[in-house]
């Protein structure tokens, strides 16, 4: 089974702080991979490097057999590599529906030329986006609040909105940064069911999460990060029995 995403030897320093120091790992195609590790291990930084929001000091990211070096974040999203944010970042002055429609609209639809001179064609292509937006918002349980401003959602709903937005891009890989953080337990349960369904439909997931129940019940493989590099990979049972992992969480990583 070939990997969908490979990161190799990533280094990233913030001033004097090495957030990533030679991080290498891969995410298997069609699987749900977990990414765990103590706070400050570099998980969010790794997601930002993968998505292109940060450029690494060293190392490579390749996705679907293609080296992504130098590709700006919006181009990475366009080829199906989509990430969400640890602290939900809804577009607060857009409605829930607009957030999702935005993600589903293509750059071709967003030209000034179309806006001015191809209005009928634009209306038709947008109608398809609206339809998909409805379907996805319904699946995410957000349709009834579709016309609310995104800023008015609860913390858990904002996380769901991020996932819904990501889905509008027809992603191959979705990287979720702590999707369950601050989400009420019943909604976490729904979220787990939703992610499982989407994975069954062929979307690959990489999930950064501290909620070990979510990791245990979803992930085919778990990567443990500590101090900016990969400590160990394996099934959840394997890594949770690993003494190095326990040490890392207790702040005793070698």
């Amino acid at each position, binding site marked *: 089974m070939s990997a969908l995403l490979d990161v190799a030897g990533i280094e990233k320093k913030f001033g004097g702080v090495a957030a990533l120091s030679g991080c290498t790992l891969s995410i298997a195609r069609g699987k749900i991979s977990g990414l765990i590790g103590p706070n400050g291990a570099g998980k969010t930084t790794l997601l930002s490097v993968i*998505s*292109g*929001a940060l450029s690494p000091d060293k190392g490579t990211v390749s996705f679907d057999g293609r080296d992504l070096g130098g590709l*700006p*974040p*919006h*181009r990475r*999203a366009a080829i199906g590599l*989509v*990430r*969400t*944010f640890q602290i939900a*970042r809804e*577009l*607060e*002055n*857009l*409605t829930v*529906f*607009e957030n999702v*429609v*935005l*993600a589903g*609209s293509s*750059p071709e*639809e*967003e*030209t*000034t030329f*179309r*806006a*001015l001179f191809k*209005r009928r064609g*634009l209306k038709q292509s*947008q*109608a398809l986006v*609206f*339809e998909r*937006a*409805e379907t996805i*918002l*319904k*699946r*995410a*349980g*957000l*349709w*009834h609040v*579709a*016309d609310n401003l995104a800023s008015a959602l609860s913390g858990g709903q904002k996380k*769901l909105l991020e996932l819904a*937005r990501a889905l509008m*891009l027809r992603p191959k890989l979705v990287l979720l940064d702590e999707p369950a953080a601050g989400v009420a337990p*019943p*909604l976490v*349960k*729904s979220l*787990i*069911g939703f992610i499982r369904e989407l994975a069954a439909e062929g979307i690959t997931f990489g999930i950064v999460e501290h909620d070990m129940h979510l990791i245990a*019940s979803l992930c085919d493989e778990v990567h443990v990060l500590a101090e900016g590099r990969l400590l160990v990979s394996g099934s959840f049972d394997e890594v949770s029995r690993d003494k190095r992992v326990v040490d890392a969480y207790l702040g005793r990583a070698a």
Partner: protein
Amino acid sequence: MTAYLVTILILASISAIVALGLNIQWGVAGLVNFGVVGFYSVGAYATAIVALGGGGAWGGLLAGVLASAVLSALIALLTVRLTDDYLAIVALGLAEVVRLVLLNEAWLTGGPLGISGIPRPFAGLVTEANYPVLLLGMILLALAATLLFAEALVRSPFGRALRAVRDDDTVAAALGKDALSLRIKAFAAGGAIIGLAGALHAFYITYIDPSQFTSIVTAYAFMAVIAGGRGSNIGLIIGAGSIMALLEATRFLKDFIPFLDGTKLAALRLAMIGAGIVLLLIFRPQGAMAEPRLSARASRPEAELKPDRLSERKVLPHAS
């Protein structure tokens, strides 16, 4: 009295057009253009220079629009990689540079004396005395066309992408939006509109000099957008109209309050506008009207906005 009304309407329409341009840049795309007057004067001067240089009134108009649009695109290109604050400072600096060029490059701009005898469109059709009415008609048409243009942009997927970039450019990029190119387009589109307003100014006055282009132009545009509601084109027309009405109405104060002379009154009127904006920002920060939003209810009329699957799952626990 008619002549006075025509003058007021012309000035109000021109400032409404400036505000429509600023609204695309700042209201919708979040690009703080503190140099509005710079682009406005470039529009006016390019119009005058080209019109007198053989381009005629229409050639001048086109030149005014293009010059301001191209300059805007260049400024945006130079600064979009920086944060918002830098664009504001660069735009402010640009307005100053433009002012200095207008004052000092006399071979091109006439220096402090400016340029006079600017040809006007359709000037032969009516008498000199009746021309302002014809011009008002043209300016109102230009305002209507600009409004349609701005509305088409703001309500389109392009406008939505601009609003996304304004709210959070990192998120917009993560959703596949090219923030850089969107910002350049927005700044250029707004710049074109501001240039058009500058051209109309040149046609109205027929004699332009640097003293007509002060930062008051920039301030009025911001006031109109704030009063009307950032992002709302219709709102800002109301905003620009109200500001002009207020300014003009207060002009007559000196007939009633004996100790006010012209200078004091001018200062007082500006202070009133300033106070008005502060009050507005305190009591109605969103302005007169909200920016237009795409409604799910209207876009998917057959689908009811009822609680849906995942929210039902809360009640019916998911089998796991």
